[in-house]
């Protein structure tokens, strides 16, 4: 127990004879219940506290345009399309045609960053556009992760659009060949 006051029996002043000693009350207080309560509260607050404040990630979506001539054209040399498939696997191709031999490749979220950096370094800054196409099998985490890769590699121009049937077919075939269910 903690001692609040030492209470010296070897104190300075001497009592004269005949002076009755006042009965000493113990100055010690049992702190155990207080400490118990204190720790109970600590545990309670530790469990209820949320330490990491959530952050917000900005997402700007393009306005839907009806007329095809209003749409921005992407240069063949600067286009880089990323498709999100099942089981955290991503597919990508450069240019506008996914069906060209050897163009449609598979990557993971770990390796896609190198591909993005490689493309960024080999393309003129103004030409580079990354097109993100999540398939129906992609999860929300995949989507956020790939948007995050854009921030990490500091890609200025990117867009998130719907996957086309041709591309989805390609993803399906590649998944089938790799045995991903």
């Amino acid at each position, binding site marked *: 127990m903690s001692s609040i006051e030492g209470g010296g029996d070897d104190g300075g002043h001497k009592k004269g004879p005949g002076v009755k000693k006042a009965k000493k009350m113990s100055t010690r207080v049992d702190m155990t219940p207080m400490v118990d309560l*204190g*720790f109970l509260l*600590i545990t309670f607050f530790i469990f209820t506290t*949320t330490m*990491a404040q959530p952050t917000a*990630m900005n997402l700007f979506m393009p306005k839907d345009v009806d007329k095809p001539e209003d749409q921005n054209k992407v240069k063949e040399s600067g286009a880089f399309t990323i498709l999100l498939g099942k089981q955290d696997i991503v597919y990508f191709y450069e240019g506008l045609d996914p069906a060209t031999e050897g163009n449609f490749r598979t990557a993971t979220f770990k390796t896609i960053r190198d591909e993005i*950096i490689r493309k960024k370094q080999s393309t003129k800054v103004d030409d580079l556009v990354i097109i993100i196409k999540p398939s129906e099998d992609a999860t929300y*985490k995949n989507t*956020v992760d790939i948007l995050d890769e854009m921030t990490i590699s500091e890609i200025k121009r990117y867009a998130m659009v719907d996957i086309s049937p041709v591309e989805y077919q390609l993803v399906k075939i590649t998944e089938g060949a790799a045995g991903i269910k």
Partner: protein
Amino acid sequence: MPSVKIKKHAPDNDMTPFVDVAFLILSFFMLATKFKPEEPIEVTTPNSVSSAVLPEKDAFMVSIDKGGRVFVSVDNPQFRQVLIDNLNKTRNLGLTPAEMKNFINAPSVGVPFSQLKSLLSLDPELETTKNVVKQQPGIPCADSTGGELYFWVRDALVAYSGRKLNLLIKSDNDTKYPVFKNVLNAFKKNDQNKFLLVTSPEDAPPGTSLYETREKQINKK
């Protein structure tokens, strides 16, 4: 007789510093804690490197859980009132004032309009209500026009007319992309193209260009 005083050691040691530290920690946690209102759904948000702080005011939040159920919540009770008033009129819900009051106090809502009246007529204090609240089917938004979520967004925008409304989307890691797309669609149909995705913070990976940019900013300071 010479008295040799043997100093008596207390069998109990001094707890004061221990208690001091304990209470210091206690006060820290008390001040650092912010209580979250109980949400009917559990959402684990993904991590992102973005460092923007989540706005707490004027927020219209759409939450999507693992199974793809969509929930809506508005932070400001005043605007909740306007929102439910509007919805009541435009969607002919036939809500009583008591039911609207329940909406104002409810954390988030995820039922089709057809079930909204029966949900809000329940007494929020009852234990059975809490089960019903947890088992809400979600707001339908699966068609190309954004479903019923479209009307929620529209009336929220009306309620906030003239003020900036922060559109937050909080979704679970395992939510499938199509659901997220449907939610975006409901916003897009209302000409809203700017969103804030709720994420947990994460550091930029070393060696990347973002990491270098941030290092430079820190060094400048």
